[in-house]
C-alpha cells in the first residue's frame, strides 16, 4: 500500500513540467498579501493538498530554514520545493514564479503613483498611512522578539545593536556579521565544550539545545 502511494507520488513528480511549476508559484505569489506567515497556509493548500508535490512536514522544514537563512522566506521555500521536484533548474523556475506577479503589479503602481502624488487627498492619505506603517513595523518586532531575545546575552546584544544603529549610524551588514560571530563564540564554544569534556555524546548535546529552547518557553 505504502509502496503504491510512493509510486503514485513518483509518477506525479515526473508529470510536473517547468511551466506548471512556474504557474503554481506565480499563483502563490498573487494570492499572498503581506508575505511571511500569511503565505504558509496558501502554500499548504497549493503544494501539499492540491498537488501533492511535497509533504506537510517537508514544507514546514523548508519554511523554518527559509526563515533563518538570508532572503525572502517565500522565495527560499520556492527554491527548496522547485529543487526537490525538478533539480536546480526547478529551483530557479519556482523562484522566478513567486516574484513574477510582484514585478508586474508593483511596476504598474510605481508608474502610476507619480501622477497622483501631488493631489492633496493622496498626500493626506499617505500621511495617515505612514503612521500605520510605523506601528506595523513594531508589531513585527514584537512577534520576532520571543524567538530572538531569549536570555540576558541576547538582550545585551539587542540593546548594543539598537544604540549603534540609532546613535552611530552603524552599518547593518557589520552588525549582522558581528552578531553571527558573537553567537558562535558565546554559544558554539559552550556547546562544543560539552562535547569535548562532558560525557554527553554529540546527539545528546543537540537534544540539549532543543530542551533548553523548550524550557525557555515554559519559564515564560
Amino acid at each position, binding site marked *: 500500500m505504502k509502496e503504491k502511494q510512493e509510486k503514485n507520488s513518483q509518477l506525479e513528480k515526473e508529470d510536473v513540467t517547468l511551466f506548471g511549476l512556474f504557474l503554481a508559484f506565480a499563483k502563490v*505569489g498573487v494570492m499572498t*498579501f*503581506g*508575505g*511571511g506567515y500569511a*503565505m504558509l497556509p496558501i502554500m499548504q493548500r497549493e503544494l501539499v493538498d492540491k498537488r501533492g508535490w511535497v509533504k506537510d512536514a517537508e514544507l514546514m*522544514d523548508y519554511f523554518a*530554514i*527559509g*526563515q533563518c*537563512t*538570508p*532572503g*525572502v522566506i517565500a*522565495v527560499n521555500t520556492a*527554491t527548496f520545493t522547485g529543487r526537490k521536484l525538478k533539480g536546480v533548474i526547478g*529551483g530557479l523556475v519556482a523562484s522566478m514564479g*513567486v516574484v513574477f506577479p510582484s*514585478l508586474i*503589479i*508593483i*511596476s504598474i*503602481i*510605481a*508608474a502610476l*503613483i507619480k501622477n497622483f502624488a501631488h493631489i492633496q487627498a493622496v*498626500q*493626506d*492619505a499617505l*500621511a*495617515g*498611512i*505612514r*503612521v*500605520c*506603517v510605523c*506601528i*506595523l*513595523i513594531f508589531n*513585527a*518586532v*514584537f512577534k*520576532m522578539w520571543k524567538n*530572538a531575545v531569549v536570555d540576558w546575552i541576547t538582550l545585551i*546584544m*539587542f540593546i548594543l*545593536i*539598537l544604540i549603534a*544603529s540609532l546613535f552611530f549610524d552603524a*552599518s*547593518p*551588514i557589520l*552588525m*549582522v556579521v558581528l*552578531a*553571527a560571530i*558573537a*553567537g*558562535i563564540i*558565546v554559544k558554539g564554544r559552550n556547546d562544543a565544550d560539552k562535547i569535548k569534556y562532558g560525557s554527553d555524546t554529540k546527539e545528546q548535546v543537540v537534544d540539549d539545545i532543543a530542551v533548553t529552547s523548550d524550557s525557555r518557553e515554559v519559564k515564560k
Partner: protein
Amino acid sequence: MISLFLRLYYEFFKVGLFAIGGGMATVPFLQEMGKSTGWFSPGELADMIAVSESTPGPIGINMATYVGYVSGVRHGGAIEGILGSVIATVAIVTAPIIIILIIAKFLEKFRENIYVNAALYGLRTASVALIAAAGISIVLFSIFQVENVYDIGKAVIDYRCFILAAAILVVTRWVPKVKEWHPIIFIAISAAIGIIFHMSV
C-alpha cells in the same frame, strides 16, 4: 546608465545576502541604501513599505521591485524603471537561491550543526534589533519630522499622529479578533483618517 544598473544589482545583492527573517528585515538595509545612494528619501521608503504591504507578493520582493523602478525612473524614463525593477528583484534573490540550493543538499546536517545554531542565535537578535532601530527612525521621520535622534529637540508635535498611532497599536495588539485582520485593512483605515483630518498639513 550601465553603472546605475550595476550599482543597483550590487546594492540589492547585499540586501539579499544579509537580510534574514523575512520582509521587514529588508527595511534597515533599504534605509541605509537610501542614505548612501540618494535613490529615495526616508518618506518615500515609508510609502514603499505601505504599498508593499498592501499589494500581493512577498514584501521583500515588492520593496526591491519598487526601489528598482523608482531609481531607474530617476535616471531615465519608464523603460529604465522597468529594467531597474527587474534587476533589483533578480539581485535580491541571487544570494538566497544559491544558499538554499547548497543547504538543500545537506538539509539534516545543517539543522543539527552546533555552529549553525550558534550563529543563528546571534543572527535572530541582530535582525530584530535592526528592525527596531529602523522602526524608530521611521517614527522620528514620519511622526516627529526630524532626520535623526540628535534632532529630537526640533520635533514637530502633531497630536493627530499620536492619537492615530496609539489607536492602531491598541487595536492591532490587544483587541481580540480584530488583531487578526490583515494589515491592508489598517492601512486603508489610516488612509481614510488621513484624508478626513487633512493630516499632511
